[in-house]
Structure formats: structure tokens, C-alpha cells
């Protein structure tokens, strides 16, 4: 394992303007909620500002200079993102976020391919965004929803995978759990799913930001992710799809830009990827996401992964002593199996109260069900507190978390 490169992280921190500002109580901002949304480096903010103040124009149909520049930057961002996950740029469709990407597949592919007799296989640890769309699809089509179970640590139980895959037309599974950080062994599951005749959609909202991802090597059919969780702006996400699948799918949203020729009674549609991009795109934020990817590339995704593993390992060590005082850390507690996510509860302090007290110390963690209500219900956790790490976090942030927990123990007179 590469050892934690504190000097590199110190340099990274200076790229994030929000981290330079103290909180209203004068504390240092200790941002441990990147799994919800990441902070943005100056280069991403600058990409937006430059677009809006130098070459803001609508794209594709513009003849004049700034329109050409906007079109080029927009499509260059698509190339950048495509390169980042090893896709062809025609296979990279801009969406608002991972959720819209998943729903796009649900509507365009799902309604046209899923029948009453089919099974949709997902897992017990999915984010609502990779569960509710399939509930709705199952409702509309009469298909059956089936779940890969998780064990008491929140790890997918794959012993019966072959049986689970029987009759499965679609496997929809997350790459990384946002609640526990557990990494799905796609290299094991995807070939089996394909052998069983299933199409595979991966919810990569927590994958691409934290792991090196190669959609070709993973051989997934669809892969969805969000820009805002990977240093990019809000409002932009990506659906990757294998070209042949996307070609065969009808359009989802209809309107400007996705058409080829429109008559009053009939319309023919544009080529990929534009067939799936109706109306004026989120031009600025696509360009911003391109800048975010370039930033991540400059760090190297292997480094990002190693850095998170290091931090998680350090956090597990520092938190261990608190377990005697009622701290419960969930998940497999193994940095090899988990991305930089740590879910926990502390004695009888409710996660919301914990988060409120941590906030007074400038420490931002998420508390609640993390959009995985059924998992929480199954595990018997009314809520958890979740700390999640990213490129700008340091051991000092972990220390601040531990100090905050000490304070909570004091406030709650544990």
C-alpha cells in the first residue's frame, strides 16, 4: 500500500477554496461527507466562470465564434469523461445525475425489454435511486424483483448467485455501497450475469469517484454516475451504455438536439449520444465535469484509492478504543473491501444528535438512512452516522472526528 502522502494532500487542500474558510463558530471545516457530494477544486469553479464570462452560447447549431468554442468545449468534456472510464465518447450520455441515468435505462430500455415473466435482480443494499426505478418498472411490466441478500456485515452474499440469476433479464447493482462503502466484486458477478443472459446496469455513483473504473474491462452494459460526487458541479451526470444497446433503444426525452428530421406527424432521431440529450444541455456543468476529471487524472485514481484506504485504516485504528464505550462501526472494517466510507453509531446517541454535536466542532458527517431505508430496516439500524473520505481529507480530519465523538460522549454523559 502506498503510504499516506500528507504533503500531496496539503497541496490538494489549497485547491479547494471552501476548505480555507472557517465555519461560523471559527472552527476549521472538516468535511467528511463526500459520499453525499464532494467539494470542488478551483479549476472546476474557474471552468464555469470562464464559460459564463467568456464564451457562453448555445451549442451545436451556432455558427458564430463563441458558439463554436462552447460546442468544442462541451464535446471535449465528453471525450475527457469517456477516456476516464475507457468508453467511446458516443457511449457517454449526459444526464442530470446518476439517478436520471438509471431512470433513462428504466424507461427506454426497461419498458421495451422487460416482460411479465422476467426477473430484475438487484441487491439489499441499493441506494433508493437503484431500487425505486426497478420497483416502478416491475409494477408497470409485471416483472419480478429479486434481491441479492447481504450478511450481517453488509456484504453481498453471493454463494447462491447462480440460483439468483435464473430467469434474470436485468441485473442492477451498485459498484460501491454509499452506506457501507463495500465494493461489489463486479469481475465475478458480471460474467455470470451475462452467462445467465442478463443485461447488467451498474450504479457507479460511488464507483467512479473513488476507484479506477474501466467500463470495457468490467464489461458492464450500462454504468451510471454523478458529477457532483467526483469534484464536478451539481446538475451533471453520465450514463454510459454499450453502443449496440443504446442504438437499439428508443429515445427517452424528446425535443431539440435529439432529432434528425422533424415533420408534423413524424420524427427521426439523431445519432448517439445526442439521441438521448433533449433540449439545451447543461453546457457549463458538463464542461465543469471535464475539468473535475482532469483534476482527478492529475492525482491518479490509483492514488485516490490508496489514499482513501490509508485514511480508512487510520480511522479504524483511532476509533477502535471507542468501541469499548459503545461505538459500533458497521461494515466489514477492511480497507481492501471498502471505499472511504465509515458508518457508525455511538452508544444511545442518535445519529442526528451525533451529527449535530460534530457540527459544532466543524465536523460534517451525514446522519440518517442514506437513501437506503430498506437496508437500514433489515440491519435494524434506525439511522447511522456516516463519515466519508476523499482526496482532500487528512489524518487531522480523522482526529477531529475522534475529538468530536469524545465531546459527544461528554454532552450525552456516556
Amino acid at each position, binding site marked *: 500500500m502506498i503510504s499516506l502522502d500528507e504533503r500531496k494532500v496539503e497541496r490538494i487542500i489549497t485547491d479547494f477554496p471552501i476548505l480555507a474558510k472557517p465555519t461560523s463558530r471559527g472552527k476549521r471545516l472538516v468535511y467528511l461527507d463526500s459520499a453525499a457530494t464532494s467539494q470542488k477544486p478551483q479549476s472546476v469553479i474557474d471552468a464555469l466562470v470562464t464559460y459564463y464570462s467568456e464564451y457562453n452560447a448555445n451549442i451545436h447549431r451556432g455558427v458564430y465564434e463563441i458558439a463554436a468554442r462552447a460546442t468544442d468545449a462541451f464535446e471535449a468534456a465528453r471525450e475527457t469523461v469517456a477516456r476516464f472510464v475507457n468508453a467511446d465518447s458516443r457511449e457517454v450520455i449526459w444526464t442530470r445525475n446518476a439517478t436520471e441515468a438509471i431512470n433513462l435505462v428504466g424507461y427506454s430500455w426497461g419498458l421495451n425489454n422487460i416482460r411479465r415473466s422476467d426477473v430484475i435482480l438487484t441487491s439489499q443494499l441499493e441506494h433508493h435511486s437503484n431500487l425505486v426505478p426497478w420497483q416502478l418498472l416491475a409494477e408497470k411490466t409485471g416483472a419480478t424483483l429479486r434481491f441479492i441478500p447481504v450478511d450481517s456485515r453488509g456484504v453481498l452474499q453471493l454463494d447462491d448467485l447462480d440460483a439468483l440469476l435464473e430467469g434474470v433479464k436485468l441485473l442492477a447493482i451498485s459498484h460501491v455501497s454509499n452506506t457501507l462503502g463495500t465494493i461489489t466484486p463486479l469481475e465475478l458477478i458480471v460474467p455470470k450475469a451475462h452467462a445467465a443472459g442478463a443485461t447488467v446496469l451498474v450504479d457507479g455513483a460511488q464507483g467512479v469517484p473513488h476507484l479506477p473504473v474501466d467500463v470495457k474491462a468490467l464489461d458492464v452494459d450500462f454504468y451510471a454516475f454523478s458529477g457532483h460526487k467526483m469534484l464536478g458541479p451539481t446538475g451533471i451526470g453520465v450514463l454510459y451504455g454499450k453502443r449496440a444497446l443504446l442504438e437499439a433503444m428508443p429515445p427517452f426525452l424528446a425535443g431539440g438536439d435529439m432529432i434528425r428530421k422533424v415533420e408534423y406527424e413524424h420524427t427521426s432521431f439523431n445519432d448517439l449520444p445526442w439521441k438521448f440529450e433533449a433540449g439545451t444541455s447543461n453546457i457549463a456543468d458538463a464542461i465543469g465535469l471535464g475539468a473535475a476529471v482532469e483534476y482527478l487524472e492529475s492525482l491518479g485514481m490509483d492514488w485516490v484509492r490508496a489514499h482513501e484506504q490509508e485514511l480508512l485504516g487510520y480511522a479504524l485504528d483511532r476509533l477502535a478504543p471507542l468501541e469499548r464505550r459503545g461505538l459500533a462501526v458497521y461494515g466489514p472494517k477492511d480497507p481492501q473491501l471498502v471505499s472511504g466510507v465509515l458508518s457508525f453509531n455511538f452508544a*444511545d*446517541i*442518535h*445519529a*442526528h*444528535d451525533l451529527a*449535530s*454535536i460534530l*457540527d*459544532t466542532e466543524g465536523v460534517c458527517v451525514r*446522519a*440518517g*438512512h442514506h437513501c437506503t*431505508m430498506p437496508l*437500514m430496516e433489515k440491519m435494524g439500524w*434506525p*439511522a447511522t452516522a456516516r463519515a466519508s473520505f476523499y482526496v482532500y481529507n487528512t489524518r487531522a480530519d480523522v482526529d477531529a472526528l475522534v475529538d468530536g465523538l469524545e*465531546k459527544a460522549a461528554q*454532552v*450525552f*454523559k456516556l
Partner: protein
Amino acid sequence: MDDFYRDFILDHYRNPRNFGTLEGATATAEDLNPLCGDTIRMDLRVNDGGIVEEVRFSGKGCAISQASASMLTEEVKGMKLEDVAKLGKDIVLENVGIGISPTRMKCATLGLRVLKSAAIGEIAGWPDEE
């Protein structure tokens, strides 16, 4: 926010008053805060004179929602149902308001919302939206 967790709040959280369900309740309501998943149920028994004779609450959630609900139950016993229906969020503010952050107001008022719902007979809006 840390000054919110005073002794009596922790006491109501750890030793909730009137906790449980009520046999023979004449009015019941239950709701959750969809943002955090906290739930509260309120059971009321109202006599012919329209007076709340007995009340129980149950649920799970943070110290704020549970302590606030617990305190409410102590106050509504003996109140007229129609007055319960008219309660505003000031009662919650008086009970637990000191030091509470705006984000947590929905936690604090969940019990009130459910109580009013039981009294009104339908789900009330968030009291802080009124």
C-alpha cells in the same frame, strides 16, 4: 447546538414519559420525517367532554424528536381536544427551543405534527410551515 442537550432533555430522551401505546385510544396518528426516518405515533383517549384524558407516544428517533414528544404528552393531558388541534410551534420552542439549529426544527416539531394530526383527524402540515 451542544447547549441544547441539557439534563432534562437527556432525561426525557432516556426516560420518555407516557411512552407506549394506548388500549382504547379514541384518536391515533403516526408519521415520519422523510428526511431522517424518525417516527412518532400518538394515541389519545378523549372523554365525552372533549378532554384528553390519556395520551401515549411511541416511535424512534433522535433526542430532539423523542424528548420533544415526551414533553408534549405531559402537557396535553387534561387539555381540550380542540385546543390541541390549534397548538402552534411556540409550545415546542418553549419546551426545547434553546440552542436548536434550524435544520433540527423538523425533528423538534414531529411530535407536535403527529399530535395535531390525531386531534384534527388528518395529517397536518409541518407546524413550522404555518
